[in-house]
């Protein structure tokens, strides 16, 4: 069989100078703060030396509260009412990011709810995907297939911790102690 001519375009780092381009007004407000089910979803991105990194940008993408996929437009022009499910936030100088969003519902009866989290950073050649599950869903988390597959010693890196009323903390460690579990959805070959 002839090889497909449609070969993937390789990734390159987002570099250091995305700060005036990728973040946008309202990017971190997936739901407005006065939305009745608004939650804060926040954390810090750490490097292998345990330092917060100042030049990462985080994207989140999640289902609606009932677990449905959102088809609403307007992620780049928030109207204050529609929750599009997508958000983007650059970290601050200490590596901290923060979103206002809603807690998604599970998309499957046998799965746990989560937000898909994507990490881009200077020095990171190719973005990283992870999932943020929620620590107040222990029964669903116990039944979730991915959480069940992951090394139990590392499972907690995938679980956002309630750290206040309607607030969840999800730190991301790129390397080293407590390194976050990152996901490969494509079974990418590495040679």
């Amino acid at each position, binding site marked *: 069989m002839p090889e497909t001519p*449609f*070969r*993937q*375009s*390789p*990734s*390159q*780092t*987002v*570099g*250091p*100078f*995305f*700060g*005036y*381009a*990728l973040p946008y007004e309202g990017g971190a407000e997936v739901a407005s703060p006065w939305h009745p089910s608004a939650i804060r979803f926040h954390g810090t991105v750490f*490097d*292998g*030396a345990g*330092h917060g*990194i100042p030049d990462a940008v985080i994207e989140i*993408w999640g289902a609606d509260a009932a*677990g449905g996929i*959102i088809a*609403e*437009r*307007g*992620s*780049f022009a928030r109207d204050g009412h529609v929750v*599009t499910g*997508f958000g983007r936030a650059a970290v601050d100088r200490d590596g901290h990011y923060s979103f206002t969003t809603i807690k*998604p519902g599970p*998309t*499957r009866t046998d*799965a746990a709810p989560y937000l*898909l989290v994507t990490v*881009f*950073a*200077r*020095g*990171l*050649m190719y*973005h*990283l995907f992870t999932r943020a599950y929620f620590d107040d869903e222990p029964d669903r988390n116990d039944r979730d*297939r991915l959480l069940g*597959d*992951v090394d139990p010693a*590392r499972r907690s890196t995938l679980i956002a911790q309630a750290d206040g009323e309607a607030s969840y903390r999800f730190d991301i460690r*790129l*390397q080293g102690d407590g390194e976050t*579990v*990152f*996901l*490969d*959805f*494509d079974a*990418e*070959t590495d*040679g």
Partner: protein
Amino acid sequence: MSTDQPPVLTQETISAEISAIHEAYRERADATRRPLPVHPPRDFLPYRSSALRHPTHELVRADPEEIELASPAFGHTDVAAEESDLTIQHSGEPLGERIIVTGRVLDGEGRPVRNQLVEIWQANASGRYVHKRDQHPAPLDPNFTGVGRLITGDDGSYRLTTIKPGAYPWKNHRNAWRPAHIHFSFFGSAFTQRLVTQMYFPGDPLFGLDPIYQSIVDPAARARLVAAYDHDVSEPEWAIGYRWDVVLTGPRSTWMEPEDADHA
């Protein structure tokens, strides 16, 4: 401050590291009869900032679920038509060589990626970004910001007008220069197709020296980030044209209509 100066990191050292890594990947590909990876290894020391920013554990394979197989919907409410022309964002014309960059965004089976968001950012003609941390002593251009957005057409096509960015120095090693490039961000119909990359210009003498470009260990994959001059895209008395097609991840992760609705 200590008076001990760290040894100067030379281009020679960086180039030797790059060659050694390329060679190791080639040998492993030959030995295992598997292709070279398309994407750069995240652990790529010649780009020094990668040292503490790559995971040391292997990624965990996961089956994409509904959310990963979908993508946010973007539309013309999100992006205005004029955002694809970076030369008309100010009262005057930016300095530099006016260019048109056009092409198609496809998935791994060659299907157009329709109505999806493309974002770009770049340095000005002098190699300077409008970013507070860009310390390059080259002039800013009051008529150029260097940020654009557009939504792909039904055939996956995109087209933007801008000026050719300049090469710029960076501090990875002594006398390090980035080849001229435009940063691109793409969404596919599935979030797993997300891609951020850089587009380069043909024949750049800095290609061989740049650890970011050379982080892609497969020469054929590297070549896919270089736009082609296309005389049919050039416009008489107006702009030089380049064509660059982009392919996101393959069919495994592309959107399929769910046949069973019973998971809802």
